[in-house]
């Protein structure tokens, strides 16, 4: 389980760096969603299942949806 947490933490660091250096805004939002999903797995490893449920619903679901809607509203998506 130790090695699994280290791999997940490396993914977390990679995702958070990739969010900030990606030029395409839609791709950045999708990477942010995967960051949130990895964070939910890490909460489960840290023995906090209720936070894992909340993170999976809010972070990976609702926040991504609101970001995509805002991007559509400001016409940031390149056709």
């Amino acid at each position: 389980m130790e090695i699994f947490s280290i791999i997940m933490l490396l993914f977390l660091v990679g995702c958070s760096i990739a969010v900030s250096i990606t030029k395409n805004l839609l791709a950045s939002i999708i990477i942010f969603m995967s960051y949130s999903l990895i964070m939910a797995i890490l909460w489960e490893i840290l023995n906090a299942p209720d936070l894992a449920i909340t993170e999976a619903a809010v972070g990976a679901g609702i926040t991504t949806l609101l970001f995509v809607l805002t991007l559509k509203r400001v016409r940031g998506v390149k056709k």
Partner: protein
Amino acid sequence: MNDIILKEIGKIVIPYIQIFGIYVIFNGHLSPGGGFSGGTVIGASLVLYKLIYGPEMIKKIINYKIVMHSMSIALLAYGILKGYSFITGGADLHLFQIPLGTPGNILSGGLLLPLNIAVGIIVGFTIFAFYSLFDEGEL
């Protein structure tokens, strides 16, 4: 969105999501979860319903009036119940207390179950209202 696959999968998936949310709310004092977690799950299912079937279908079931009425009633219930427990506990008055029940059952823990249900209603409708406000600018 007129996608037949999306509609048929939605018919199967959405009830399970809502039942899971209700399970998380009702077992909040026994197992991980509670009002906020279950409310977000139910709100996500409502958002998914609106995303698949369009805003006209959900206007028949959940409109502005129902959202505002249920959120106000839930907030009032939360305030009254929690205020009552503050008064009886803090001022050391020997008023009526809710029976605690046997530990391990659903009906135990005193006021935790109704407070969890109130929080779940508020959070679920708030998330749906956020999505509606971001999407159309109105509820």
